[in-house]
Each structure stands twice: as C-alpha cells, then as structure tokens.
C-alpha cells in the first residue's frame, strides 16, 4: 500500500513534483494541438492526402535545400529519396560513415502485410495488430498509413538488391514474430537491419555521387536554428577538429534515433543519444509519451559493473525457444549457487511461465508482457544466473527439428551468444534478461511528420508516432523506412510548396550568430566545471536511477524518488564533472558530456511523463494499476491521449498538452494474449 502521508511529504520537498502538481490541478494554461489528420475513413486518408497535397515542380525543387540529421533507416532513406526527387540535401551523421547508424544492428526482420504465406494477413490486420500491440495509445491514421506502405517497402528493398531470405522456389521467405498470429516478417539471416540499411546507404551513395546529397560525417548537431518561427538550419560540432559549423536550409529533418541510453546500459550503440530531441524541445518542439520505453525481453544478462552495453538476442529466437525458470525455489537457489545445472532439472519441474500465463500466444507474446513476466519470476526468487536471468531453451526445438535446422535458422545468433557468455546454447539453455532497447516516445509530430515547430520534421525512432505504448517486433525497421521512403517525401513537398520563392539561406543571419554563441557558451561551461567525475561515471549513476525507479515496474513513490535522484545527479554533473582535453579539438569526453547533459533533461521528462500517466499500458507499467492476475490496468477514460510536453525554460515547469486519441476503425478493447 502507498503511504500517502509520506508521499505528500516527498511531493512537497521535490521541486519537480511541485511543478507537476500544478499541471494536475489544472493551473496550467490550455494549449491546443493540431495533428492534421485528413478527413475520411481511415483506409482512405493517405490516398486522399496524396491526391490533394501541394507539390513542388522540378525546377523549383532545385532551389530548395533540406537538412537531414541522421543516416539510419529513416535518415538515409529520406535523404536519398529527397535527393532523387531533386531537392538539395545536406545529410549529417556522428559516425565515420553513414553506414554505421544503429539501425544496422536490428536482427530479426521487417513486417509487411504482403500475405505471401496465405495465412490471412492484410493491411487491416497489420494495422490492427500494431494498434493493439501498442495498447491503444497510438494514432489510428498514422498506423494505418504505416501498414499501407509496408508492402511498398519490401518491393523497394528487393529492387535495391537487398538479399532477403528465400524459399527453394525462389520466392521470399517469412517468419513469425511476437504479437502476431501470421507470418509476415521478412528477413536476411539475423542481419535484416544491416541489409536494409546498406540498401538505403547504397541509394544514398548514388545521390552523393550525383552531387544531389552532400554527406557530412563525424558531425554532431548541437542546435536547431529558428528564423521567424521556422526551422532554417543547424549548428554542428565537427567531431574531428572541434570546430563549430553552421548549415542553413529551407527545412530540417531529424532522424536521430531513440533515447534508450538514458538507462546507460541498453542495447543501443555507444553513440546513440537523445540530444537532437532535447535541442528541438528547447526550441519549441513538444516531446511526447516519453514514459513509453521498451524493455526487450531477450538480452544477454549483465556481467558486471564495467559493462558498457547489453547485447540483444533477436526476438525471432522466441519462435523456437521455450522460456522457463525452475518451478521449485530450491532448484533456482541451487542453480544460482552452482550446485545444479539447468539440464539437471526435469521437464515437470520447469515453469514455462509464458505458456502457462498466455496460452494463445505463449512464448510469442509481445515484448512488454514477456519482459514483465521475466521480472516477476526473478523478483519472486526463481531467477537463475545472478538471479536476474531466465532460460531460453532450444532443447525442444532440437528434438523436434534437429540441430541442423536450428543451426540454419539461428546459427549466427547462437555463435554470438557463445562468444559473449562462453556457454554453448546447443547443449545448455541460454540465459536472458530484459534490457532497454527502444523508445516509443519521442518528438511529437503531426500526420505530416512535422513537429510543433514549422519546417522541423522528425522521422523514425526519434518521433513518437506509430507504436503507441509498445512496439511489436520487426516494426521499427518498417516505420523507419516508411517515414523515409514513402511518407516524408510527400509531406515535405506540401510544406515546401509555399517556400519556393524563399532564396537559399546564408549562415550569417543573426539567429545563427545567437545559436552558435549559445553552443560555445554551453561547451565552455562544461569544460570549466573541472570536477573529478568522468561523464561515464555520472551517466552510470543516472542509469542506475532510471533502471531501478523508471524501469519495468514503476510506482508513484519510485517516480517521485526518481525525480529527486535525477536532480541530485544533475547537481553532481554541474559541480563535479571533469572533461579532460580541450574544446576546439577532437574530444570524446566532451562528446559524452554534451550527450549526458541532454540525457539528464530526457530522464527528468521520462519520470514526469510516467508520473502523469496514472495507468498501466503497454511498456508503461505502474504497479498500482494492475488487475488481480497481474496484467496492466489501462484507464481509457482519463488517459486515452498523447501526453505532449512543452518546454518553458531550464528551471521552469513543462506544460502538458493532451492530444486525444480517437479510434474509429478499431474497437477499443483490453489487450488479451491469453485466448
């Protein structure tokens, strides 16, 4: 039970909660929000939009410049397609090559409603599964469009020469994934993200070769420049020289990925960050649904304090692997003490808890449910390994299919597991545990993928748009490429159609001076703290706070405590940070410090968003709100909305704006994966 007295005391002493209490009591000014959803039935909205949107003729496209920040699936596909259309594109990435973006690490596959398997799939069913998987917290019109263009993506990628897996007859192969009862996932071994990204990278290279796209590597965006209310450029730091550079354009597209490294340990790459989102936030773009962060159920467990990141094992493993923990607590204890091996436990003493709790979907239930169920068993004392791990067992698949078939399907994943853990998964079950993986929340965008700042667009994982409170497996690749290849290139024209008379911008506008000055001051401030703690040390501390208090299970108390502890980490950051080296030089410590400063903003907003949402839905599980059998208790009456947050100042209260969600094509229901 929650001790309300104690809680009130905590609320009073927390500056963030005071801000927040104001929002709850309705003391904040009302803001309206326009998601620009086209009229008509959901199945016709996108067709209608395309039929009536404004276009830019080829001669005028030549006169328009577009900045695309990021070169993952969304960024590379958008930059190349906008280039193909004739716009001048400036494309930026923080890595040494556009091909390194973290989309490359996606393993399992990409969904599309092709129904090649004749198993009853359709655009509507993909749409339905995605909305249901997102626990009715996504925008119906966006998701329908996503499902609609999913088929074009597969056609496009095959035409690019992406070597998808094929059947002996020469047609494309499919596999099944969590949250669906059809096989609609296209894949290229366990390297689907790599192959799709290299496809987009190839198209991008063609445009770079033509001079239509100019590529800037090892550059990190540090601010968006707004001129007369429209995004007109960016300030970047050259990561090799430390120089601050300016770039101007008619529109700016952010494709900068998710903020999952707010947890420090995650499956994200070392360079992944939420900084572009924070800079957009500070310039007026709303952040939405930040509480919705996906904790992926099948990652390799943490080995120790020096760990720098976690490795995901593809969800596709759940097709043939069975997840279990010992039925008897004493068996679990003996395993943890090294006295028993998993293979010593007979079948009747194994608790296949997902099959037990969710008979209809079993091991293929959605990620949020699988993650929470693992945590529940471990918290109850049935965990293996360090206590924070469960088994994923291929014994049964090997008995059923033979080792060769299992090797053919999952060989590279098994090798990867063995390399990291030193265990052979053909002989002993894998150990897995949930880890931060993907962020459904992000920059708020309307139907046109435009943020609340004119001319500033956000695509891919960095926007909030399509996955609601939980993303289904193999849908991230689909969304990134849908946004980049098939949505933004249309909506961008609609935006630029009245900008054709606006001449090329130069970077000597006073707004550029102002933005650059602010960036330089920010860097100088961090360099001059001259404390004792490295950015990584402080980031690890933030990660512990986020994982323990804003992780898989949240409570009012944990979140209030999180806001206080984040504040303490923030204080430590501004008083005890040490950045060695100099600012106008290659400086990896400074890069980390700048990103961490922004993670502190994101972390606070995540906790506030989670506090505001007094319900459990999808990946957001507030322990106070659960049904008698431990399932998420959603509150559609009060929370069927997108929570959008507006920045009002570093120490000011953020403003909550609600975008109501309306379901017309789908009947809202309780998510059920049991029967």
């Amino acid at each position, binding site marked *: 039970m929650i001790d309300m007295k104690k809680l009130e005391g905590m609320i009073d002493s927390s500056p963030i909660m005071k801000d927040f209490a104001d929002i709850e009591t309705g003391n904040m000014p009302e803001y309206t929000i326009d998601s620009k959803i086209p009229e008509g039935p959901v199945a016709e909205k996108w067709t209608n939009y395309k039929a009536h949107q404004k276009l830019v003729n080829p001669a005028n496209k030549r006169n328009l410049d577009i900045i695309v920040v990021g070169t993952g699936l969304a960024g590379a596909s958008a930059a190349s397609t906008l280039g193909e259309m004739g716009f001048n594109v400036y494309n930026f990435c923080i890595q040494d090559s556009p091909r390194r973006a973290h989309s490359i690490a996606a393993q399992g596959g990409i969904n599309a409603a092709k129904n090649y398997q004749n198993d009853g799939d359709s655009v509507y069913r993909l749409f339905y599964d995605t909305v249901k998987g997102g626990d009715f917290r996504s925008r119906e019109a966006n998701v329908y469009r996503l499902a609609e263009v999913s088929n074009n993506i597969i*056609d496009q990628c095959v035409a690019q020469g992406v070597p998808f897996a094929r059947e002996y007859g020469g047609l494309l192969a499919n596999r099944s994934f969590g949250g669906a009862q059809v096989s609609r996932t296209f894949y290229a071994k366990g390297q689907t993200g790599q192959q799709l990204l290299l496809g987009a990278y190839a198209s991008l290279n*063609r445009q770079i070769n033509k001079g239509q796209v100019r590529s800037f590597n090892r550059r990190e965006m540090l601010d968006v420049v707004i001129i007369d209310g429209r995004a007109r450029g960016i300030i970047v730091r050259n990561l090799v020289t430390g120089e601050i550079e300016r770039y101007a354009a008619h529109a700016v597209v952010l494709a900068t990925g998710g903020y999952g490294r707010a947890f420090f340990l995650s499956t994200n790459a070392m360079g992944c960050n939420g900084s572009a989102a924070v800079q957009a936030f500070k310039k007026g773009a709303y952040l939405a649904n930040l509480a919705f962060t996906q904790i992926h159920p099948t990652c390799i467990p943490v080995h120790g304090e020096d760990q720098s990141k976690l490795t995901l094992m593809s969800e596709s493993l759940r097709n043939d692997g069975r997840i279990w923990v010992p039925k008897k607590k004493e068996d679990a204890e003996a395993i943890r003490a090294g006295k028993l091996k998993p293979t010593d436990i007979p079948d009747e003493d194994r608790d296949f808890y997902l099959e037990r709790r969710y008979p209809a979907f079993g091991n293929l239930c959605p990620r949020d449910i699988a993650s929470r169920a693992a945590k529940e068993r471990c918290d109850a004392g049935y965990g293996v390994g360090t206590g924070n791990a469960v088994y994923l067992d291929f014994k049964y698949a090997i008995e059923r299919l033979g080792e060769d078939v299992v090797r053919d399907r999952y060989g590279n994943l098994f090798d990867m597991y063995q390399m990291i853990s030193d265990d052979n998964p053909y002989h002993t079950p894998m150990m897995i545990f949930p880890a931060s993986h993907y962020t459904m929340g992000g920059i708020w965008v309307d139907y046109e993928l435009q943020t609340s700042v004119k001319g500033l667009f956000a695509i891919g994982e960095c926007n909030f748009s399509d996955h609601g409170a939980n993303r289904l497996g193999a849908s991230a690749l689909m969304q990134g490429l849908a946004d980049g290849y098939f949505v933004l290139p249309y909506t961008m024209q609609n935006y630029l159609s009245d900008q054709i008379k606006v001449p090329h911008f130069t970077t000597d506008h006073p707004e550029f001076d102002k933005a650059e000055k602010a960036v330089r001051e920010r860097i100088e401030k961090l360099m001059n703290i001259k404390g004792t703690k490295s950015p990584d040390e402080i980031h690890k501390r933030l990660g512990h706070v986020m994982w323990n208090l804003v992780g898989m299970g949240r409570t009012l108390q944990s979140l209030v405590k999180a806001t206080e502890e984040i504040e303490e980490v923030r204080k430590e950051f501004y008083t005890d940070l040490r950045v060695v080296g100099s600012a106008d030089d290659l400086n990896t410590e400074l890069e980390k410090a700048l990103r961490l400063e922004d993670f502190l903003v994101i972390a606070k907003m995540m906790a506030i968003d989670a506090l505001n949402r007094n319900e459990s839905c999808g990946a957001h599980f507030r322990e106070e709100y659960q049904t008698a059998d431990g399932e998420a208790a959603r509150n559609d009456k009060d929370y069927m909305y997108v929570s959008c947050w507006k920045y009002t100042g570093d120490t000011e209260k953020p403003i909550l704006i609600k975008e109501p969600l309306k379901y017309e094509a789908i009947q809202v229901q309780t998510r059920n994966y049991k029967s």
Partner: protein
Amino acid sequence: MEHTISVNLKIWRQRGPKEKGQFVNYHLDNVSTGSSFLEMLDMLNQQLVERNEEPVVFDSDCREGICGMCSLYINGHPHGPVQGITTCQLHMRKFNDGDTITIEPWRSAAFPVIRDLMVNRNAFDQIQQAGGYVSFNCGGAPDANDTPISKEVADVAMDSATCIGCGACVAACKNGSAMLFVSAKVSQFALLPQGQVERKRRARAMVAKMDELGFGNCTNTGACAAECPKNIPLSNIARLNREFINAKCAE
C-alpha cells in the same frame, strides 16, 4: 567461471595524421575476463581521466560486431587473435594474467590516422559512391515476388553482402589492397538479377575509384579473407577479377 587478470598494454598514440606517433605502456589490474576488449580499454580510459590525462581515442559504436566502426590491430592481427569476430566481440577471457597486449591502428596509406587508434576510412565510402548501388528511384518497384531468385544464389549474395566495411582486409594486406571489400559489393549485385543492368559499369567504376584512392594491388596472399571478421570468402575476389575483365573486354 570469470575471474580477474592483470594486463600490460602497449598502445600506439599519435596526435594527428602528420604527427609522429609512439607506443606508450600502460598497466591495468582487475580486468574481469567476462569484460569485452573495448570495456577493458574503457577501464583504462577511466583511469587516465582520473589522472587528468587524455583518454586513448578509438572508434566503436554498436559493440555487437555489426556496425564495422571498431578496428584495432591487436597483437599483430586486425580485430585480435580470434578469427571471425570484430574487436568489440573479443573478450578478455582470451588473454592470460600478465600478458602484454600490443594495440595499433589500421596501418594503410588509404586510411590515415586521425588520432591514436582512430583512422579515416572515407575512402571506402567513396568507392561505394562510385557504383555500389542499383540505380533505381524510390516509388516504381514491381512486386517483390515478381522475380524469383533461387535460394542458393540469394544465400551466396547474402554472404557477400555481410561485409561490414571495417577495413580489416586492407589492414591485413601487405599491399594495402581493398579487393576483398570491393569484390564483396560487386559480387552481391553481380549475383542478383537486380544488379545485371549496371553490372559492367559498376565493376569498372568501383575498381577505378579503388585504384585512384591509393589502395595497393592484390597478389592473392589471402590474408584479407583469413582476417575478415565476417569470413567473406576469397572467391569474391576471383569473381571481381572475372567481372572486371568481362567489363573491360566489352568496352
């Protein structure tokens, strides 16, 4: 079971492409054998920062062997002594207590050192830009199942497409040749029906760019394939030679 070891590190440090570099020795205790090699370097850097010294600069991103960002020449081998993996997948359990580990950057004229262990691999991007694509605009693609491709062909194309562009092949080659890298991309498209139209043009353009950028010639030593973290086979180079000769004859 995992335990901790001590290691001696001999690390190449160099301020910039034109400056003179040198080996610097470091000693590191309490390294868990369950840590990855790069986590060991993170530990070293943490200690350097504590001593107010600049950390050793090296590239890394995904840390799961797929982005191709990490490099490092470890004890004379690109990506270290274990075959078929990248540096980020190398674990400290492969080393013994008291070992001395020598760490150098990729050494090739086409990959100048930026700082310490970080090198500039833009030349790889430029080769891809010269022709590593199917010239095809988004929008007009036929149905994905219109052109069946036999599983065998698709699988071989996939094996070639697995290249992560890390540059180990160039670093391993005594001539600094990029043939394995170039041949992997040329092979992928030469095998698939989508790549046929531009097959000859692609082979010519990519080879010409490779030569222009200062990569060495191939003398069929095979070090590239032996050291490739993705096991890209040498047969790709044979295919590239065939593609190139055919393309030249057709000129």
